[in-house]
Protein backbone atom coordinates (compact mmCIF):
# COMPACT_ATOMS: atom_id res chain seq x y z
CA UNK A 1 0.00 0.00 0.00
CA UNK A 2 1.17 3.51 -0.79
CA UNK A 3 2.60 5.43 2.12
CA UNK A 4 0.11 7.81 3.75
CA UNK A 5 -3.01 6.13 2.37
CA UNK A 6 -5.50 5.32 5.09
CA UNK A 7 -8.10 2.67 4.37
CA UNK A 8 -11.53 3.67 5.69
CA UNK A 9 -14.26 1.09 6.02
CA UNK A 10 -17.18 2.25 3.93
CA UNK A 11 -20.06 -0.20 4.11
CA UNK A 12 -22.00 -0.56 0.85
CA UNK A 13 -25.37 -0.48 2.54
CA UNK A 14 -26.41 2.12 5.09
CA UNK A 15 -28.04 0.76 8.21
CA UNK A 16 -31.63 1.79 8.97
CA UNK A 17 -30.50 4.34 11.54
CA UNK A 18 -28.05 5.89 9.11
CA UNK A 19 -30.58 6.07 6.31
CA UNK A 20 -32.93 8.05 8.56
CA UNK A 21 -30.24 10.75 8.50
CA UNK A 22 -31.60 12.55 11.55
CA UNK A 23 -29.73 10.39 14.06
CA UNK A 24 -26.50 10.97 12.17
CA UNK A 25 -27.11 14.73 12.26
CA UNK A 26 -27.54 14.44 16.04
CA UNK A 27 -24.18 12.68 16.27
CA UNK A 28 -22.59 15.37 14.12
CA UNK A 29 -24.10 18.07 16.32
CA UNK A 30 -22.62 16.32 19.36
CA UNK A 31 -19.17 16.34 17.74
CA UNK A 32 -19.28 20.03 16.86
CA UNK A 33 -20.65 20.95 20.28
CA UNK A 34 -17.81 18.96 21.82
CA UNK A 35 -15.28 21.05 19.89
CA UNK A 36 -17.13 24.24 20.75
CA UNK A 37 -17.22 23.58 24.49
CA UNK A 38 -13.65 22.30 24.55
CA UNK A 39 -12.41 25.43 22.80
CA UNK A 40 -14.34 27.68 25.18
CA UNK A 41 -13.00 25.86 28.23
CA UNK A 42 -9.44 25.54 26.93
CA UNK A 43 -9.07 28.81 25.08
CA UNK A 44 -5.29 28.68 25.24
CA UNK A 45 -5.13 25.35 23.39
CA UNK A 46 -6.51 26.72 20.10
CA UNK A 47 -3.65 26.22 17.64
CA UNK A 48 -4.11 29.62 15.95
CA UNK A 49 -0.98 31.83 16.03
CA UNK A 50 -1.93 35.50 16.35
CA UNK A 51 0.39 36.42 13.52
CA UNK A 52 1.65 39.96 13.67
CA UNK A 53 2.09 39.86 17.46
CA UNK A 54 3.15 36.24 17.80
CA UNK A 55 5.41 34.55 15.29
CA UNK A 56 6.04 30.92 14.61
CA UNK A 57 9.63 29.95 15.48
CA UNK A 58 11.19 28.89 12.20
CA UNK A 59 13.27 25.69 12.00
CA UNK A 60 17.06 26.25 12.04
CA UNK A 61 17.46 25.50 8.32
CA UNK A 62 14.51 27.59 7.15
CA UNK A 63 15.44 29.64 4.06
CA UNK A 64 13.99 33.10 4.49
CA UNK A 65 14.86 36.50 3.06
CA UNK A 66 18.53 37.06 2.21
CA UNK A 67 20.97 39.23 4.10
CA UNK A 68 24.54 40.29 3.31
CA UNK A 69 27.15 39.92 6.05
CA UNK A 70 29.53 42.69 7.09
CA UNK A 71 33.19 42.77 8.05
CA UNK A 72 34.13 44.08 11.52
CA UNK A 73 34.67 47.54 10.00
CA UNK A 74 31.15 47.59 8.54
CA UNK A 75 32.02 47.13 4.86
CA UNK A 76 30.30 44.26 3.03
CA UNK A 77 32.03 40.90 3.27
CA UNK A 78 31.13 40.23 -0.38
CA UNK A 79 34.04 40.30 -2.84
CA UNK A 80 31.85 40.48 -5.96
CA UNK A 81 33.07 37.15 -7.32
CA UNK A 82 29.74 36.46 -9.12
CA UNK A 83 29.59 32.87 -7.75
CA UNK A 84 26.09 33.37 -6.35
CA UNK A 85 24.80 35.09 -9.50
CA UNK A 86 26.21 32.21 -11.55
CA UNK A 87 24.73 29.55 -9.30
CA UNK A 88 21.30 31.18 -9.20
CA UNK A 89 18.81 29.11 -11.24
CA UNK A 90 16.32 31.99 -11.35
CA UNK A 91 18.91 34.57 -12.46
CA UNK A 92 17.67 36.99 -9.85
CA UNK A 93 20.98 38.38 -8.56
CA UNK A 94 22.54 41.37 -10.32
CA UNK A 95 26.08 42.35 -9.24
CA UNK A 96 28.21 45.25 -10.44
CA UNK A 97 31.80 44.98 -9.17
CA UNK A 98 34.08 47.86 -8.29
CA UNK A 99 37.69 48.15 -7.15
CA UNK A 100 37.90 48.01 -3.38
CA UNK A 101 39.57 50.91 -1.53
CA UNK A 102 41.03 48.35 0.89
CA UNK A 103 44.38 47.06 -0.59
CA UNK A 104 43.85 43.64 1.05
CA UNK A 105 40.57 43.15 -0.83
CA UNK A 106 40.40 43.06 -4.59
CA UNK A 107 36.76 43.93 -5.40
CA UNK A 108 33.56 44.98 -3.69
CA UNK A 109 29.95 45.08 -4.96
CA UNK A 110 28.89 48.54 -6.16
CA UNK A 111 25.44 47.12 -6.82
CA UNK A 112 24.01 43.94 -5.39
CA UNK A 113 20.31 43.51 -6.27
CA UNK A 114 18.12 40.52 -5.55
CA UNK A 115 14.80 40.42 -7.40
CA UNK A 116 12.61 38.83 -4.74
CA UNK A 117 9.86 38.29 -7.31
CA UNK A 118 12.10 35.93 -9.24
CA UNK A 119 13.93 34.28 -6.33
CA UNK A 120 12.88 30.66 -5.78
CA UNK A 121 14.50 30.43 -2.32
CA UNK A 122 16.61 27.42 -3.31
CA UNK A 123 19.63 28.50 -1.25
CA UNK A 124 22.15 27.87 -4.07
CA UNK A 125 23.65 31.35 -3.62
CA UNK A 126 24.37 30.63 0.04
CA UNK A 127 25.98 27.31 -0.90
CA UNK A 128 28.06 28.92 -3.65
CA UNK A 129 29.45 31.85 -1.65
CA UNK A 130 33.15 31.33 -0.83
CA UNK A 131 33.22 34.08 1.85
CA UNK A 132 30.00 33.33 3.73
CA UNK A 133 28.81 36.79 2.66
CA UNK A 134 25.19 35.91 1.87
CA UNK A 135 22.88 34.09 4.23
CA UNK A 136 19.17 33.27 4.27
CA UNK A 137 18.76 33.01 8.04
CA UNK A 138 16.57 36.07 8.74
CA UNK A 139 13.57 33.85 9.35
CA UNK A 140 11.38 36.20 7.29
CA UNK A 141 9.04 35.53 4.41
CA UNK A 142 9.17 38.20 1.71
CA UNK A 143 6.84 40.87 3.08
CA UNK A 144 4.20 42.11 0.62
CA UNK A 145 4.71 45.43 -1.17
CA UNK A 146 2.51 47.54 -3.42
CA UNK A 147 4.96 47.99 -6.31
CA UNK A 148 7.31 45.63 -8.12
CA UNK A 149 10.22 48.06 -7.66
CA UNK A 150 10.07 47.73 -3.88
CA UNK A 151 10.55 43.99 -4.19
CA UNK A 152 13.96 44.33 -5.86
CA UNK A 153 16.15 44.48 -2.77
CA UNK A 154 19.20 46.76 -3.12
CA UNK A 155 22.50 46.35 -1.29
CA UNK A 156 21.57 48.80 1.52
CA UNK A 157 18.45 46.85 2.40
CA UNK A 158 20.32 43.54 2.26
CA UNK A 159 23.10 44.82 4.49
CA UNK A 160 20.88 46.27 7.20
CA UNK A 161 19.15 43.01 8.07
Amino acid at each position, binding site marked *: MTIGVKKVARPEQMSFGESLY*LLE*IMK*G*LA*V*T*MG*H*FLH*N*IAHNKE*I*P*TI*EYPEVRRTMPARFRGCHRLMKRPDGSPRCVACYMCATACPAKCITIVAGESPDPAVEKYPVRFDIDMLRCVFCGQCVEACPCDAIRMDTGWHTPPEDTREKLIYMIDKLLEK
Partner: protein
Amino acid sequence: MNPLFDIAVAVARVAVFFAFVFGLVVVMTWVERKGAAYIQDRRGPNRARILGLTLGGVFHPLADALKFLFKEDFIPDGAHRLFYQLAPMFALAPAIMTMAVVPFGPPVTIAGKTIALQIADLNVGILYLFAVSGMAVYGVVLAGWSSNSKYPLLGGLRSSAQMISYEVSMGLSVMGILMVFQSVRLSEIALGQGELLYGILPKWGVFVQPLGFVLFLTALYAEANRTPFDLPEGESELVAGYHLEYASFKFSMFMMAEYIHMVVGAAVVSTLFFGGWQFPYLADKGFAFPGGISVAVPAAAVLILRIGSFVGKTLFFCWLYVWVRWTVPRFRYDQVMRLGWKVMLPLSLLNIFVTGLVLLFIDKGGF
Protein backbone atom coordinates in the same frame (compact mmCIF):
# COMPACT_ATOMS: atom_id res chain seq x y z
CA MET B 1 -60.08 54.82 27.92
CA ASN B 2 -58.20 57.62 26.23
CA PRO B 3 -56.84 56.89 22.74
CA LEU B 4 -53.41 58.29 23.63
CA PHE B 5 -52.84 55.33 25.92
CA ASP B 6 -53.68 52.88 23.13
CA ILE B 7 -51.32 54.60 20.74
CA ALA B 8 -48.56 54.64 23.34
CA VAL B 9 -49.05 50.92 23.96
CA ALA B 10 -48.99 50.12 20.25
CA VAL B 11 -45.82 52.13 19.69
CA ALA B 12 -44.16 50.61 22.76
CA ARG B 13 -44.93 47.08 21.57
CA VAL B 14 -43.52 47.75 18.13
CA ALA B 15 -40.44 49.45 19.60
CA VAL B 16 -39.73 46.66 22.07
CA PHE B 17 -40.09 43.84 19.57
CA PHE B 18 -38.16 45.75 16.90
CA ALA B 19 -35.34 46.40 19.34
CA PHE B 20 -35.36 42.75 20.40
CA VAL B 21 -35.22 41.38 16.86
CA PHE B 22 -32.67 43.87 15.53
CA GLY B 23 -30.53 43.54 18.64
CA LEU B 24 -30.57 39.80 18.18
CA VAL B 25 -29.68 40.22 14.48
CA VAL B 26 -26.60 42.20 15.44
CA VAL B 27 -25.64 39.69 18.11
CA MET B 28 -26.25 36.78 15.72
CA THR B 29 -23.73 38.08 13.18
CA TRP B 30 -21.17 37.98 15.96
CA VAL B 31 -22.36 34.62 17.31
CA GLU B 32 -22.21 33.11 13.85
CA ARG B 33 -18.61 34.10 13.29
CA LYS B 34 -17.38 33.36 16.78
CA GLY B 35 -19.34 30.11 17.00
CA ALA B 36 -18.02 29.00 13.63
CA ALA B 37 -14.49 29.74 14.77
CA TYR B 38 -14.80 27.81 18.03
CA ILE B 39 -16.46 24.86 16.32
CA GLN B 40 -13.61 24.76 13.80
CA ASP B 41 -10.82 25.19 16.40
CA ARG B 42 -10.12 28.76 15.38
CA ARG B 43 -10.19 32.00 17.37
CA GLY B 44 -12.58 34.02 15.22
CA PRO B 45 -12.99 37.78 15.13
CA ASN B 46 -10.87 39.47 17.80
CA ARG B 47 -9.29 42.50 16.13
CA ALA B 48 -11.78 45.37 16.28
CA ARG B 49 -11.07 47.27 19.45
CA ILE B 50 -12.45 50.26 21.29
CA LEU B 51 -10.19 51.84 23.95
CA GLY B 52 -7.90 48.84 23.73
CA LEU B 53 -10.70 46.39 24.55
CA THR B 54 -11.63 43.63 22.13
CA LEU B 55 -14.05 41.71 24.40
CA GLY B 56 -13.93 38.63 22.20
CA GLY B 57 -14.72 40.56 19.03
CA VAL B 58 -18.12 41.97 20.02
CA PHE B 59 -17.26 45.23 18.25
CA HIS B 60 -17.06 43.52 14.88
CA PRO B 61 -20.78 43.96 14.03
CA LEU B 62 -20.29 47.69 14.62
CA ALA B 63 -17.24 47.70 12.38
CA ASP B 64 -19.23 45.79 9.73
CA ALA B 65 -22.06 48.31 9.85
CA LEU B 66 -19.62 51.22 9.50
CA LYS B 67 -17.89 49.51 6.61
CA PHE B 68 -21.19 48.93 4.79
CA LEU B 69 -22.19 52.56 5.34
CA PHE B 70 -19.02 54.00 3.84
CA LYS B 71 -18.58 51.66 0.89
CA GLU B 72 -19.32 52.83 -2.62
CA ASP B 73 -22.94 52.19 -3.58
CA PHE B 74 -22.66 51.23 -7.25
CA ILE B 75 -25.12 49.96 -9.84
CA PRO B 76 -23.71 47.65 -12.53
CA ASP B 77 -23.93 48.98 -16.12
CA GLY B 78 -26.21 46.29 -17.49
CA ALA B 79 -28.50 46.08 -14.48
CA HIS B 80 -32.19 46.99 -14.57
CA ARG B 81 -31.92 50.12 -12.49
CA LEU B 82 -35.39 50.09 -10.93
CA PHE B 83 -35.61 46.42 -10.02
CA TYR B 84 -31.98 46.33 -8.96
CA GLN B 85 -32.74 48.97 -6.34
CA LEU B 86 -36.13 47.52 -5.40
CA ALA B 87 -34.81 44.02 -4.73
CA PRO B 88 -33.15 44.69 -1.34
CA MET B 89 -36.35 46.36 -0.15
CA PHE B 90 -38.39 43.39 -1.33
CA ALA B 91 -36.05 41.15 0.65
CA LEU B 92 -36.03 43.19 3.84
CA ALA B 93 -39.66 44.35 4.10
CA PRO B 94 -41.35 40.91 4.35
CA ALA B 95 -38.71 39.79 6.81
CA ILE B 96 -39.55 42.71 9.10
CA MET B 97 -43.30 42.26 8.60
CA THR B 98 -43.25 38.64 9.77
CA MET B 99 -42.30 39.62 13.31
CA ALA B 100 -45.67 41.33 13.85
CA VAL B 101 -47.70 38.27 14.83
CA VAL B 102 -45.34 36.49 17.24
CA PRO B 103 -46.53 36.73 20.86
CA PHE B 104 -43.66 37.31 23.25
CA GLY B 105 -45.61 37.09 26.47
CA PRO B 106 -49.06 36.44 27.94
CA PRO B 107 -51.63 39.24 27.93
CA VAL B 108 -51.03 41.64 30.82
CA THR B 109 -53.52 43.91 32.54
CA ILE B 110 -52.40 47.49 33.04
CA ALA B 111 -54.81 50.10 34.43
CA GLY B 112 -57.80 47.85 33.84
CA LYS B 113 -56.93 47.17 30.19
CA THR B 114 -55.77 43.84 28.86
CA ILE B 115 -52.76 44.27 26.60
CA ALA B 116 -51.53 41.47 24.37
CA LEU B 117 -47.74 41.33 24.31
CA GLN B 118 -47.71 41.00 20.54
CA ILE B 119 -47.58 43.68 17.87
CA ALA B 120 -50.78 42.48 16.17
CA ASP B 121 -52.99 39.61 17.31
CA LEU B 122 -54.35 38.83 13.85
CA ASN B 123 -57.15 36.32 13.55
CA VAL B 124 -55.39 34.83 10.50
CA GLY B 125 -52.12 34.57 12.47
CA ILE B 126 -50.09 31.86 10.88
CA LEU B 127 -51.62 32.34 7.41
CA TYR B 128 -50.39 35.95 7.46
CA LEU B 129 -46.96 34.65 8.44
CA PHE B 130 -46.80 32.30 5.45
CA ALA B 131 -48.26 34.87 3.06
CA VAL B 132 -45.68 37.47 4.01
CA SER B 133 -42.69 35.19 4.25
CA GLY B 134 -43.63 33.81 0.83
CA MET B 135 -43.04 37.34 -0.53
CA ALA B 136 -39.39 37.08 0.43
CA VAL B 137 -38.76 35.03 -2.70
CA TYR B 138 -39.47 38.14 -4.83
CA GLY B 139 -36.46 39.90 -3.36
CA VAL B 140 -34.22 36.98 -4.25
CA VAL B 141 -35.60 36.52 -7.76
CA LEU B 142 -35.55 40.24 -8.55
CA ALA B 143 -32.00 40.58 -7.29
CA GLY B 144 -30.90 37.59 -9.34
CA TRP B 145 -32.60 38.72 -12.53
CA SER B 146 -32.02 42.48 -12.43
CA SER B 147 -28.26 42.20 -11.83
CA ASN B 148 -27.80 41.04 -15.45
CA SER B 149 -25.08 38.58 -14.53
CA LYS B 150 -25.07 34.81 -14.89
CA TYR B 151 -24.25 33.78 -11.32
CA PRO B 152 -26.93 35.86 -9.61
CA LEU B 153 -29.42 34.63 -12.21
CA LEU B 154 -28.59 30.99 -11.46
CA GLY B 155 -28.73 31.68 -7.72
CA GLY B 156 -32.08 33.40 -8.08
CA LEU B 157 -33.48 30.53 -10.17
CA ARG B 158 -32.33 27.96 -7.68
CA SER B 159 -33.64 29.75 -4.66
CA SER B 160 -37.02 30.49 -6.20
CA ALA B 161 -37.45 26.80 -6.99
CA GLN B 162 -36.22 25.79 -3.56
CA MET B 163 -38.23 28.29 -1.55
CA ILE B 164 -41.45 27.53 -3.41
CA SER B 165 -41.00 23.76 -3.01
CA TYR B 166 -40.36 23.99 0.68
CA GLU B 167 -43.18 26.46 1.21
CA VAL B 168 -45.54 23.59 0.40
CA SER B 169 -44.25 21.20 3.04
CA MET B 170 -43.80 24.05 5.51
CA GLY B 171 -47.46 24.95 5.27
CA LEU B 172 -48.59 21.34 5.43
CA SER B 173 -46.35 20.48 8.38
CA VAL B 174 -48.01 23.16 10.52
CA MET B 175 -51.45 21.84 9.65
CA GLY B 176 -51.21 19.23 12.40
CA ILE B 177 -50.63 21.94 15.02
CA LEU B 178 -53.62 23.88 13.75
CA MET B 179 -55.78 20.74 14.02
CA VAL B 180 -54.65 20.01 17.56
CA PHE B 181 -55.03 23.54 18.92
CA GLN B 182 -58.04 24.41 16.76
CA SER B 183 -56.78 27.88 15.94
CA VAL B 184 -54.55 29.78 13.55
CA ARG B 185 -53.97 32.58 16.03
CA LEU B 186 -50.45 32.34 17.42
CA SER B 187 -51.62 33.74 20.77
CA GLU B 188 -54.22 30.97 21.14
CA ILE B 189 -51.73 28.30 20.06
CA ALA B 190 -49.30 29.54 22.71
CA LEU B 191 -52.09 29.62 25.30
CA GLY B 192 -53.21 26.09 24.41
CA GLN B 193 -49.73 24.73 25.08
CA GLY B 194 -50.00 25.59 28.77
CA GLU B 195 -52.12 22.52 29.51
CA LEU B 196 -50.65 19.20 30.61
CA LEU B 197 -50.66 16.04 28.53
CA TYR B 198 -51.78 13.02 30.61
CA GLY B 199 -51.03 15.19 33.66
CA ILE B 200 -47.25 14.86 33.20
CA LEU B 201 -45.90 16.41 30.02
CA PRO B 202 -46.56 20.01 29.06
CA LYS B 203 -48.77 19.95 25.97
CA TRP B 204 -46.13 21.48 23.73
CA GLY B 205 -46.33 21.19 19.98
CA VAL B 206 -43.18 19.09 19.87
CA PHE B 207 -44.79 16.40 22.08
CA VAL B 208 -48.10 16.20 20.21
CA GLN B 209 -46.54 16.74 16.75
CA PRO B 210 -42.96 15.38 16.77
CA LEU B 211 -42.94 14.64 13.04
CA GLY B 212 -44.51 18.00 12.30
CA PHE B 213 -41.72 19.66 14.30
CA VAL B 214 -38.93 17.95 12.36
CA LEU B 215 -40.58 18.76 9.03
CA PHE B 216 -41.27 22.36 9.99
CA LEU B 217 -37.72 22.92 11.22
CA THR B 218 -36.24 21.45 8.04
CA ALA B 219 -38.56 23.51 5.83
CA LEU B 220 -37.71 26.60 7.88
CA TYR B 221 -34.00 26.13 7.22
CA ALA B 222 -34.73 25.77 3.52
CA GLU B 223 -36.95 28.85 3.57
CA ALA B 224 -34.34 30.96 5.33
CA ASN B 225 -31.68 29.72 2.85
CA ARG B 226 -29.54 28.40 5.67
CA THR B 227 -27.15 25.47 5.49
CA PRO B 228 -27.67 22.63 4.58
CA PHE B 229 -30.02 24.33 2.09
CA ASP B 230 -28.00 27.46 1.26
CA LEU B 231 -27.73 26.60 -2.44
CA PRO B 232 -28.83 30.08 -3.55
CA GLU B 233 -25.50 31.35 -2.23
CA GLY B 234 -23.39 28.26 -2.99
CA GLU B 235 -20.01 30.03 -2.86
CA SER B 236 -18.15 27.23 -4.59
CA GLU B 237 -20.27 27.26 -7.74
CA LEU B 238 -22.13 30.59 -7.74
CA VAL B 239 -19.58 32.90 -6.08
CA ALA B 240 -22.19 34.44 -3.77
CA GLY B 241 -25.48 33.73 -5.51
CA TYR B 242 -28.26 36.25 -5.95
CA HIS B 243 -26.61 39.17 -4.11
CA LEU B 244 -23.28 38.89 -5.94
CA GLU B 245 -23.64 42.26 -7.74
CA TYR B 246 -24.64 44.16 -4.61
CA ALA B 247 -22.37 46.18 -2.36
CA SER B 248 -22.50 48.50 0.60
CA PHE B 249 -25.86 49.02 2.29
CA LYS B 250 -27.89 47.15 -0.31
CA PHE B 251 -25.86 44.05 0.42
CA SER B 252 -26.27 44.57 4.12
CA MET B 253 -30.04 44.76 3.60
CA PHE B 254 -29.94 41.25 2.12
CA MET B 255 -27.81 40.12 5.03
CA MET B 256 -30.17 41.73 7.53
CA ALA B 257 -33.16 40.09 5.84
CA GLU B 258 -31.50 36.69 6.19
CA TYR B 259 -30.78 37.20 9.87
CA ILE B 260 -34.23 38.62 10.60
CA HIS B 261 -35.68 35.53 8.92
CA MET B 262 -33.55 33.44 11.24
CA VAL B 263 -34.60 35.28 14.38
CA VAL B 264 -38.30 35.40 13.51
CA GLY B 265 -38.15 31.77 12.39
CA ALA B 266 -36.65 30.82 15.76
CA ALA B 267 -39.41 32.76 17.53
CA VAL B 268 -42.09 31.03 15.43
CA VAL B 269 -40.67 27.56 16.10
CA SER B 270 -40.60 28.19 19.81
CA THR B 271 -44.16 29.55 19.67
CA LEU B 272 -45.62 26.73 17.62
CA PHE B 273 -43.73 23.76 19.02
CA PHE B 274 -42.16 24.75 22.35
CA GLY B 275 -44.98 26.55 24.10
CA GLY B 276 -43.98 30.09 23.19
CA TRP B 277 -44.02 32.07 26.40
CA GLN B 278 -45.21 29.07 28.47
CA PHE B 279 -42.83 28.04 31.21
CA PRO B 280 -43.11 24.30 32.02
CA TYR B 281 -45.54 23.67 34.91
CA LEU B 282 -45.97 27.39 35.56
CA ALA B 283 -49.61 28.43 35.91
CA ASP B 284 -50.94 31.95 36.53
CA LYS B 285 -50.61 31.59 40.33
CA GLY B 286 -47.34 29.70 40.51
CA PHE B 287 -45.70 26.35 39.83
CA ALA B 288 -48.00 23.30 39.82
CA PHE B 289 -45.91 20.14 39.45
CA PRO B 290 -47.48 16.79 38.43
CA GLY B 291 -47.06 15.26 41.90
CA GLY B 292 -49.55 17.74 43.36
CA ILE B 293 -46.81 19.99 44.71
CA SER B 294 -47.41 23.65 44.09
CA VAL B 295 -45.23 26.68 44.73
CA ALA B 296 -46.75 30.13 44.79
CA VAL B 297 -44.97 32.74 42.67
CA PRO B 298 -45.84 36.46 42.60
CA ALA B 299 -47.56 37.66 39.42
CA ALA B 300 -44.68 39.88 38.31
CA ALA B 301 -42.21 37.01 38.62
CA VAL B 302 -44.57 34.78 36.60
CA LEU B 303 -44.62 37.38 33.82
CA ILE B 304 -40.84 37.74 33.85
CA LEU B 305 -40.34 33.96 33.85
CA ARG B 306 -42.72 33.61 30.90
CA ILE B 307 -41.13 36.33 28.77
CA GLY B 308 -37.72 34.99 29.77
CA SER B 309 -38.77 31.53 28.68
CA PHE B 310 -39.80 32.85 25.26
CA VAL B 311 -36.51 34.74 24.89
CA GLY B 312 -34.53 31.69 26.03
CA LYS B 313 -36.22 29.39 23.51
CA THR B 314 -35.72 31.91 20.73
CA LEU B 315 -32.05 32.25 21.62
CA PHE B 316 -31.65 28.47 21.58
CA PHE B 317 -33.16 28.13 18.12
CA CYS B 318 -31.03 31.02 16.85
CA TRP B 319 -27.98 29.17 18.13
CA LEU B 320 -29.26 25.97 16.52
CA TYR B 321 -29.06 27.66 13.10
CA VAL B 322 -25.38 28.39 13.67
CA TRP B 323 -24.75 24.99 15.19
CA VAL B 324 -26.35 23.15 12.26
CA ARG B 325 -24.62 25.39 9.74
CA TRP B 326 -21.17 24.32 10.90
CA THR B 327 -22.16 20.67 11.26
CA VAL B 328 -24.10 19.62 8.17
CA PRO B 329 -22.54 20.13 4.73
CA ARG B 330 -24.55 21.60 1.88
CA PHE B 331 -26.81 19.30 -0.15
CA ARG B 332 -26.52 18.88 -3.87
CA TYR B 333 -29.30 20.64 -5.75
CA ASP B 334 -31.07 17.49 -6.95
CA GLN B 335 -30.90 16.09 -3.40
CA VAL B 336 -32.62 19.22 -2.07
CA MET B 337 -35.41 18.88 -4.61
CA ARG B 338 -35.79 15.15 -3.98
CA LEU B 339 -35.96 15.72 -0.23
CA GLY B 340 -38.51 18.48 -0.69
CA TRP B 341 -40.93 16.71 -3.01
CA LYS B 342 -40.38 13.00 -2.39
CA VAL B 343 -39.75 12.90 1.35
CA MET B 344 -41.04 16.05 3.05
CA LEU B 345 -44.30 16.36 1.12
CA PRO B 346 -45.52 12.74 1.61
CA LEU B 347 -44.44 12.83 5.26
CA SER B 348 -46.31 16.04 5.95
CA LEU B 349 -49.42 14.63 4.27
CA LEU B 350 -49.04 11.48 6.37
CA ASN B 351 -48.69 13.64 9.46
CA ILE B 352 -51.97 15.42 8.70
CA PHE B 353 -53.71 12.10 8.02
CA VAL B 354 -52.53 10.44 11.24
CA THR B 355 -53.32 13.54 13.30
CA GLY B 356 -56.79 13.56 11.81
CA LEU B 357 -57.31 9.87 12.60
CA VAL B 358 -56.15 10.32 16.20
CA LEU B 359 -58.36 13.35 16.71
CA LEU B 360 -61.36 11.60 15.15
CA PHE B 361 -61.23 8.17 16.80
CA ILE B 362 -59.03 8.26 19.90
CA ASP B 363 -59.20 11.72 21.33
CA LYS B 364 -62.34 13.56 20.40
CA GLY B 365 -62.24 17.31 20.95
CA GLY B 366 -58.51 17.88 20.58
CA PHE B 367 -56.48 15.74 23.01
